[in-house]
């Protein structure tokens, strides 16, 4: 018989919980990524995700001088609101990959991507609270409050890195307490970015969404068919009349009558 008791004990310890939570989050996260990838059929969808990831990464690097103040959380919240959870997840992964190319990769990259994906999902779920009824404007106050909350939640989620690595709850708690001032900075930064960026970014994402307005209708519009029928009728009549020496404008008069 295999003795599962040590495994069960470990899996109920804080370190064990951190590991299986990571695996679970990874599975959800992976399936969402696969789904986002499969649903991408247009080049512009790929390009929009790319642009948002590039802008968010550049902004994160730009604000690297101010510890834990960066606009990525608010950006991904807005992406979740506009483009849905799958694409927000895709952007989250790309931002973590791209920005950490400059700021340093490590085990935290995975947790950052997962935490930002959750930020995007929350934006999608809370969309009715965050956008006006006609969808034309963003409600800055609820967005700022949500951003403030995520400032803390995001950092606590990323701190699971320490728990998963050290397998000691004490390390996690000391890391958690030491990080509180940084978490506060993230939260306050999110509020400021919500006020500064959200209205214009909402408008810019709306600009992109107008591009979905195109389509293909297999039949020609009624007015085109009518006009061409008239022209061809008119030209037939005109050529007949020319041959017989009649008034070439007779076809047009016929239509007017």
């Amino acid at each position, binding site marked *: 018989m295999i003795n599962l008791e040590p495994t069960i004990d470990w899996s109920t310890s804080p370190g064990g919980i951190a590991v299986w939570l990571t695996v679970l989050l990874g599975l959800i996260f992976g399936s969402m990524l696969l789904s986002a990838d499969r649903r*991408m059929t247009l*080049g512009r969808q*790929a*390009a929009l995700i790319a*642009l948002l990831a*590039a802008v968010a990464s550049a902004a994160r690097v730009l604000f690297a001088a101010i510890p834990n103040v960066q606009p990525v959380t608010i950006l991904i919240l807005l992406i979740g609101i506009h483009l849905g959870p799958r694409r927000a997840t895709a952007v989250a992964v*790309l931002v973590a990959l791209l920005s950490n190319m400059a700021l340093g990769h490590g085990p935290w990259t995975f947790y950052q991507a997962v935490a930002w994906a959750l930020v995007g999902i929350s934006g999608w779920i809370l969309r009715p609270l965050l956008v006006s009824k006609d969808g034309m404007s963003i409600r800055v106050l609820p967005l700022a409050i949500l951003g403030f909350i995520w400032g803390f939640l995001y950092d606590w989620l990323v701190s699971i890195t320490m728990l998963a690595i050290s397998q000691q709850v004490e390390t996690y708690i000391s890391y958690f307490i*030491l990080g509180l001032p940084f978490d506060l900075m993230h939260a306050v930064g999110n509020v400021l970015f919500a006020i500064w960026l959200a209205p214009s970014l909402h408008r810019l994402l709306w*600009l992109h969404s107008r591009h979905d307005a195109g389509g293909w209708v297999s039949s020609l519009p009624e007015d085109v068919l009518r006009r061409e029928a008239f022209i061809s009728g008119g030209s037939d009549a005109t050529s007949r009349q020319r041959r017989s020496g009649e008034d070439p404008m007779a076809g047009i008069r016929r239509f007017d009558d």
Partner: protein
Amino acid sequence: MSVWGWQGEASARLGPPRHFRLPFLVAAVVIPLLVNDPKYMVGWAAFLILWSLAMVGPNTFAKWVKLWIPLTIIYGAFLYGFGAATEPLAIGLLISRLLLALLGMQILQWSVPPSDVVSSFEWVLPRLGVSLAIALRLVPRLERSARWRLETLSERGFDDDGTFMQKLRLRSSLWPGWFADALDHAHDLGDAVQSRGLLTPRKPRGGILRASLRRLLGEEKDVGGEHIGPFSDMVQLGLDIEMRLPDGRSIGRHKRMLRGGSVILLKGPSGCGKSSLLRVLAGVSPWQHPVTVYGKAHLSGHPVLGEIDISAGPFASSIACWIPQDPDRHGIAESVRREFNIARRLAGDWNQESMLEELEAWNLLEMLDEKPEELSDGEQQRLLLAAHLDPAQPLWLLDEADVHLDEAGFIQLGKAVVKHQARGGLVIVVAHRHARWSPIADEIIEMEVGETPIELPICEAPSTRGEQEWTPPEISLFSNQVEPVRAGDLIVITGENGTGKTTLLREWAAADGIVWLPTSPDRRLLGMTVGEELTLQHPLLLQAAKLVDGANLGNDAGEEVNRLQIRQSRLRLDLGLSRIADATPVHDLSCGERRRLSLLPLLISEPRIMLLDEIDHALDDSMLAELLRLLGKARADGCALILTSHSPDLALWASMSGGRRWLIENEVLSEVKA
């Protein structure tokens, strides 16, 4: 060049070998954590620093250091302040470890080409891999776009007055325009990805088993897929479509049958729907554009896809070879070599020999390791044509593909087109300067019937030469053998692609503070909407726009604002921009309209000298004539005009208008005597 990104093919060769990248990444992170002895730490640091210097040179390394040292000091101060570590030595050790790990990762970042990162996504998340490729292409563009905006602000005089905070506020308020420009560039890259079929997941040609067997037997790679024989007689394009904008305005009704083995030239004024038609035929519109297409369009005789109902799109694979306008916005890869690899990823691998032949024919062989953004517009156009003129596609759609090409480049393009035509392919060309194309076109389609040919207006040369205004400074690339510029001079600079015409204008502008207009209008546009752009064209106009009701700027400034506003309105009317609503997003305008909008602040400021790069780009004949009339007026008022162009029409116009010609050849800028 960005300090963060890939630093080119030379760095790639000096970086960790392909299969050792992952172990190196682990070592770069782990070694600084494990080593406690300062002696070994210094050794590891010296090794990384020497490697970095050899790879990227002292300048890039110094930039990296300049950024990270202050940042790590700030982090150290925070750690100390919040009590994470109390001993200065411990903090120093922590920071050293952090810096060493970062430098190790940066070595990878400098040496690993983005397309290698992207290819690691290919089998599992291929479309996200394409997203990543686009993102990596956009990051340097974002940086450049921000720099252009700052240059434009400075050129328009926004840096002259105001406190530091006012300047900061102005700069930070420009981000929506910056984002909108990036969004537009991303859309263009999205169109390129769609038309080239890059979203199709990669499949081993002939199946995994066959590929493995072939490898085991040591056979050559299959170059199938690249159709090199003639097409069947069945290549036909049947059109019965009407295209409409969301407001219901028609931008083209096409009812005709076009057969393979012919070259069709589309003519018509700006905005008549030429480019829109090509986008529909390339399978990009209407799925990616706010255009509604009514009717049917069929392409038959495709060697792989057979009969294609274009309305059944969007297509995962490429259905036609589309070369769009603006080559700097449609390249995906990070180097010339890799653009070729991407171009042939789906159509069949490049045979090394044919790739080299193609590169040589297009005069790109020496630029194999260059980054596309560092090439001139003409060279980028050559690259796009060399890499993406796909002989396997029966339908070629060329949208102003010759604008940036010199004569040698156009001859090369003409040869390729005639060869394709002889193989039974169908080529549709859009061009504003159609004199080049008329001799090889089998049919010319007028998009707006009744358009009368327009003569370029000859502008009268001043009867006496004006005062000496400016002597062109020597720059490192060229030696000058030209006479000084005088008031009212008209000078056209000519030279082959890549000789440095644009560089020359840029350097002169920077050296002597002269206003210049680059070919791409996006380098000189700041606002997100036309209204914002108009207010950002002069500091006083911006101040006036910020005033609340009832306030005024004072008598003198108020009068100056009135004068500027009147001049701006008159120029808008002359340039055909007065009908555009202020709320229109700048990037909804056509390339020609954006070009004219970017010229407006130059004309408003009434400079003594103007440097204009390829002024005829994206303008139809009537608009070019109007623009030349305006420039003639500025010249009559004493403004000296210095233009670059590849167009024989414009060179002829300049010589008939009493202009001078300068030629760049063999790194010498010389006066051409009439």
